[in-house]
């Protein structure tokens, strides 16, 4: 399988009056054609900022990208790309769906105008053909009476419908990579299940790669092939879903799993992770999970944990050799 996007050692910090917020601090992951990679982590762990930073969608300043690379298939590094190159890629080869369905559509423009935009501005279709394509896209995501929906404004749709519109909009250009930032978090459970099914179906049809961000491990289990576990702007663990869920290597992943209700195994008592994430302006040299970790030792405060890699590329950053179960 060809990699669609390879992010390596990405470092992106916010320079604020409060200090330097180390929101993304050396993140690496790869996503291949046709696969779904889940990104999990507690709120504030840098899942969103990480994706927005290499897509260059955050204002710089306050953000500063201090290092790393983000290579697309074909070798273009997004971190070195010109504004024109970035524009021709965004919404075309790489599309993004955002966390906030209620506010991510422009309230002053009809759904049709917004839906046709990517096709038109990337020079893929004329206005008329774009409208036909847009109708088809809306039908595909399960919006009844699509041609009437094109003439309506976002406020006339419910949250679930708006997220469908967002998905339709992201998919009109047949992207190689879809970045879905918690597309279902704001929606109720039945709608959530429908949207996940929709994404799975669309992936089968088009072979696109999906980077799926969530803090819901249940969703990851149902949709992803591989997982990246993030904490305090860093990757803690990375591997296939089975590896990460059943051969967990990192205490943070273990704690996350223990705090999530599961149907397939008997977990005993559910426990939330004690303590709270560290202040990203005051990270020390050691492991950011130190202090909340059940297995902490002296080295954890002083030295950043080494990368432990299995032959299958299951990776974890931890001083511990073999996590007690």
């Amino acid at each position, binding site marked *: 399988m060809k990699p669609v996007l390879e992010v390596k050692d990405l470092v992106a910090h916010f320079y604020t009056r409060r200090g330097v917020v180390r929101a993304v601090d050396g993140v690496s992951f790869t996503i291949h054609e046709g696969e779904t990679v889940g990104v999990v982590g507690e709120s504030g762990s840098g899942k969103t900022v990480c994706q927005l930073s290499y897509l260059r969608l955050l204002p710089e300043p306050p953000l500063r990208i201090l290092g790393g690379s983000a290579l697309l298939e074909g070798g273009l590094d997004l971190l070195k790309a010109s504004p024109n190159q970035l524009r021709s890629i965004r919404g075309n080869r790489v599309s993004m769906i*955002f966390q906030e369905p209620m506010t991510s559509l422009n309230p002053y423009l009809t759904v049709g105008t917004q839906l046709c935009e990517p096709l038109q501005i990337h020079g893929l279709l004329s206005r008329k053909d774009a409208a036909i394509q847009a109708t088809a896209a809306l039908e595909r995501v399960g919006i009844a009476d699509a041609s009437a929906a094109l003439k309506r404004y976002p406020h006339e749709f419910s949250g679930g419908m708006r997220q469908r519109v967002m998905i339709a909009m992201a998919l009109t250009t047949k992207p190689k990579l879809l970045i879905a930032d918690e597309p279902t978090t704001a929606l109720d459970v039945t709608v959530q299940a429908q949207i996940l099914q929709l994404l799975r179906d669309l992936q089968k049809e088009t072979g696109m790669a999906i980077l799926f961000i969530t803090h819901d491990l249940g969703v990851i289990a149902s949709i992803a092939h591989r997982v990246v576990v993030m904490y305090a702007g860093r990757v803690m663990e990375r591997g296939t879903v089975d590896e990460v869920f059943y051969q967990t290597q990192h205490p943070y992943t273990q704690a996350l799993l223990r705090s999530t209700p599961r149907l397939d195994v008997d977990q005993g008592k559910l426990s939330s992770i004690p303590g709270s994430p560290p202040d990203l302006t005051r990270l020390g040299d050691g492991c950011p999970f130190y202090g909340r970790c059940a297995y902490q030792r002296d080295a954890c405060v002083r030295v950043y944990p080494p990368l432990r890699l299995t032959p299958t590329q299951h990776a974890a950053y931890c001083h511990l050799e073999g996590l007690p179960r």
Partner: protein
Amino acid sequence: MGLGYLLKRLAIMVPVFFLVVTMVFFMIRFAPGGPFDGEKAVSPEILRNLNEKYHLNDPLLVQFGNYLKDLVRGDLGPSFKYANRTVNELIADSLPVSLELGVTALIWALLIGLVAGGLASMKPNTVWDYVPMSFSILGICLPTFVIGPLLVLVFGIWLEWLPVAGWDAPEDRILPSLTLGFAYAAFISRLTRGGLMEIRSQDFIRTARAKGLSEARILIVHSLRGGLLPVVSYLGPALAGIISGALVTETIFNIPGLGRFFIQSAVNRDYTVVMGTALLYFTLIFVCNFFVDIMYALLDPRVKYE
């Protein structure tokens, strides 16, 4: 926004207008003094005749009834102070002048305000922001009777580029309309800057960027409509302010507009002129706000007038 709503808005105007007529009529009548008090040379005999001629001796309610009857026909009555002139004539002479001054001032205000505010919003916290915004503080703080003479001093007297007063040549329009429009330009520039910056921080602008749109398209297609709504809703009060505030400017530059009648007639108890100008101002302001509301609804699809 349905036609029904528009008709309803217009229909509401009738009772409101009647209320205004009634209030102004009785307020000015209950004010002490009368139209002919100031004229020392007038003998009691002539005064009686004058009062007779203008029906000022009739019971007040009868006078009010007669005024309403004339008003329905569009007749605002004779002026008491300007002999042989009707209020309709006075308005016909001076309204075009005031309207021209007001509209020119508004154009200045929009032109300067939108450009300065737009620039400032694109490069916040740079010279492009600080310079126009400092000027706008000045514009908001300095009253017309300071700005006017200041402009006259600089452009009329020192530089001798523009005439200092009058209302004949086209270049006569520049200084008065700038004087009148400056404060509004200042305020509009702040509204524009704030509105555009507010819009640009919205999630949907990030969506637009993620779609690969150019900055120009993001500004024109995605930001202007929402970003300029504050300016649009300010246009109603701005027009009202410009129309009624023209008085000072008209005095500074000696312009034969409506403003001077408004003040003089109140002082002179020139009842019909007071009534005429007050009703005219009311109508202008009402109509302006009416159009602003329509514009607002056209720009923002979420606004529904019922």
